[in-house]
């Protein structure tokens, strides 16, 4: 009965590659988010989608492209990976009437 799930859990890749991270929530929530947690554990929002529509884009390089095929899924595609992209990426979701966000298990991305 996983609420917010992400795949893969770990991702190790070379600089310059393109990779995707997938997120799915079975909570029936309308809004989904991507956060980046850096090596100092600082969490910062990247994107937010509401019912498949982009509502928050926090000055993230355009190498990062979110895509929401339906309101239960929010994927993150990253082009031309750089060393500085190494981080843990968390997906989250929240219901329409409540700002509480529920987080996925995270994807640890390591760029070599």
């Amino acid at each position, binding site marked *: 009965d996983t609420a917010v799930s992400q795949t893969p859990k770990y991702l190790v890749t070379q600089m310059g590659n393109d990779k995707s991270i997938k997120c799915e929530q079975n909570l029936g929530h309308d*809004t989904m*988010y991507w956060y980046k947690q850096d090596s*100092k*554990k*600082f*969490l*910062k*929002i990247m994107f*937010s989608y*509401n019912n498949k529509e982009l*509502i*928050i884009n*926090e000055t993230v390089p355009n190498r990062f492209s979110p895509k929401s095929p339906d309101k239960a899924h929010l994927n993150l595609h990253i082009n031309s990976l750089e060393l500085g992209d190494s981080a843990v990426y*968390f997906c989250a979701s*929240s219901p329409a009437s409540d*700002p*509480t*966000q*529920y*987080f*996925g*298990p*995270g994807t640890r991305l390591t760029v070599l």
Partner: protein
Amino acid sequence: AQSVSQHNHHVILSEAASLELGCNYSYGGTVNLFWYVQYPGQHLQLLLKYFSGDPLVKGIKGFEAEFIKSKFSFNLRKPSVQWSDTAEYFCALGGATNKLIFGTGTLLAVQP
């Protein structure tokens, strides 16, 4: 601009000691405040939240927090910590938009 400050970056306590972690926020509008916990290698879990009403909110695992509007604070407390409380604790602010602004986190180490 919205911001969250957590002044205690690293706290070390012995089991059964009392805990108070500081959180101050900056925002002029109606606030939603959260405390999340991240156990080693795991995702963020919601401890408690405040939207309105009674400023003393109780959460899971014996944690509570008090919203003091005049001090722009939302400190987290627990009367007696256990070794299993060792984790990173994040205070977060939700304002007018859906995004959460996180503090830099406090790493709590409880010694048996």
